[in-house]
């Protein structure tokens, strides 16, 4: 019996000591070395920032809210592009309130882009993303907005189309996954044409 008790005591002490040793290895040495290596990455391990005239206007990876008609719009977001509280809508596919919301989004798009047809609207433009911070829209999502942007900014449609093409990323290695348009970079490029004029 006493040997059993002693063994138990030994196991408990081993458990505590091993836990402490592993905390040093896994929670101090490992993450700090990665953080140090991260200083050599774009954005120095704090997330790559995008600046305009010396001011930070966003993070390269994070989508932001665009509602003005002279900008390309991003996807609907369940959290209003709150980068300190990411989330999706978590609406189920048959939820009637949700379907009403989607239908309203379609109407808004048609109102601001009167030349497009319903069948041209891609699903990503009327559904909320998983993170609420999706930086991308599909190519089709950008194409349906070209006429509106050109009209509001009084620039040639062809020029806007060129910008969309320039800001569309190809599939990974040209082979894997979808292509996508980065809305923030596209809008920055748009603003640049105006300031050049």
């Amino acid at each position: 019996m006493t040997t059993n008790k002693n063994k138990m005591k030994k196991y408990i002490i081993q458990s505590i000591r091993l836990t402490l040793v592993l905390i040093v290895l896994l929670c101090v040495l490992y993450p700090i070395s990665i953080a140090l290596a991260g200083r050599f990455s774009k954005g120095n391990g704090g997330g790559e920032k995008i600046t305009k005239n010396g001011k930070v206007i966003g993070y390269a990876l994070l989508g932001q809210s665009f509602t003005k008609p002279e900008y390309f719009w991003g996807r609907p977001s369940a959290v209003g592009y709150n980068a300190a509280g990411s989330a999706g809508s978590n609406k189920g596919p048959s939820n009637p309130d949700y379907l009403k919301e989607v239908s309203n989004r379609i109407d808004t798009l048609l109102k601001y882009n009167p030349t497009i047809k319903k069948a041209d609207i891609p699903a990503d433009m009327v559904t909320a993303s998983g993170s609420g911070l999706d930086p991308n829209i599909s190519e089709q999502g950008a194409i349906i907005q070209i006429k509106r942007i050109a009209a509001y900014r009084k620039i040639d449609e062809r020029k806007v189309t060129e910008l969309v093409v320039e800001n569309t990323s190809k599939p990974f290695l040209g082979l894997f996954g979808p292509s996508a348009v980065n809305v923030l970079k596209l809008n920055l490029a748009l603003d640049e044409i105006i300031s050049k004029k």
Partner: protein
Amino acid sequence: MNTEFLGIIATFLLTLVIAIPLGKYLAKVFAGEKVWTDFLKPLETGIYKLSGINPKEQMNWKQHLKVLLLINTVWIVYGFFVLLYQDKLPFNPDGNPGMTPDLAFNTIISFVANCNLQHYSGETGVSYLTQQYVLMFLQFVSAATGIAAAVVLFKAFRDKTTTNLGNFWEVFVKSITRLLLPLSIVMALILTFNGTPASYEGKDHFISMQGDTVHVSRGPAAQLIAIKHLGTNGGGYFGANSAHPFENPSYFTNMVEMIAQTIIPIAMVICFGYFIRRRKLGWTIFGVMTIGVLLLMIPTLTSELGGNSAIAKMGISQATGAMEGKEVRFGPTATAYWSTLTTVISTGSVNGMHDSTMPLTGAWQLLAMMINGFYGGCGVGILNYFIYLIIAVFISGLMVGRTPEFLGHKVEAREIKIAALITLLSPFLILVGTALSAHLFTHYGNAAWAVQPKTWLNNPNFHGFSEMLYEMTSSNANNGSGFEGLGDNNSFWNISTGIVIFLGRFLPIIGPVAIAGLLAQKKYIPESAGTLKVDTKTFALMTFAVIIVLNALSYFPALALGPLAEYFTMLK
């Protein structure tokens, strides 16, 4: 062929290319044979010395379980108090509050159990200290616990008759030093150099192009995200998990994360075959599991790529598939692929919101977690599958009228009782848990609780029921994904799922290890003409049938009330 499909095919092939050699490597590591990572021996010796461990000391199956449970208890006590008082401890640059006791209970059980169900949100619910010193720490050690438990079972079938099943500490430490930590370093670096934050800087803010002030949560995320996948944990750094652009910046990182969460579960199966010197058995199990995964994945792809029929009626284009809750950079194909992997394996990380997937997709996700043995979690996947094997051996034995045998050991009443209890545990926890919550929701909706049950659900009708069923299923499977619309941070859900996670973790570890330990003590019966061969196609089919029948009988009614009912409603 379209690039989205090419993407998942390439991902799957790359997974196998990495996992199979990894399995062979692990078999050598656990057998103590020479491997190229032996240069890490001094590190291990140092760890043993500092912890007062003699790695040569042999343990029987009871001692293994004893130390496993003891060290897990130490982690529960440690983590619970740190989570509770994180607001008073350092490394909390965003000033996040301490957890309530029920939330701390749920969170600590969930992370110790490798489940990683999260009733808090990473941005607002934890500090940098708890992210790293509690949650990431547990992601390493809970995965290593699962692997070490599986290796006890492997050892039991390596020798003919034995009670010496190796040293728990040795396998546990080696799982970290030879597998989890090196792979995590590589993966964390890949993530960091593709945009995931890794530094300790606190929240940032900027003025957006349209003039809004935006706050940005950051922190040492890459380190945690690496082990979150490799260890099949799934608990994300940010609230939106791997849908968050920081947590999963590109299609490339998405491939890396999908591969990372699959390699160890597959490697463990291959390792089993090589370790017990019955390679064919390993490959047979791998075959059954892979067919199971494909049978869940193909209909998931069909259902997601078909889009939402209710939205199709509005006349817009769903050319690539359903997009609610998904990210454009991954697309519906890779998101559907991920949703199958993360539910068959007990990762539970998500790159798109499961609550918004199509009804049938939800059914496949649920079924994958109910089965919980196709690849399965780090180590525990093969333990769960072992229970199915024992049941299949027993039923086959009854069919031919002989005492059932498994790898040269008689399977008798005691072992079958344990296997039966473990088999019954899952439906008991899932169905009783769901029934209880549904009862509270319908009958006590206005109860004077801090959060009234009637406000729990984010979606009405059948889908609402699915939210509750999903939460209980995910807890029992130690999966950790959720139909996140469920309002789950309140005493009822925190306590009930905490209990389900705890039982759903430790009993399915104790059961198989005990069966293996008991079998290994018995006299070895050499193979004869009358021996049931467990590495044949016929027996593989038998196991598959057992898995399907057991799960269909247990769960069909619940699935019919939730996702299937929603599916048929939408057909109208």
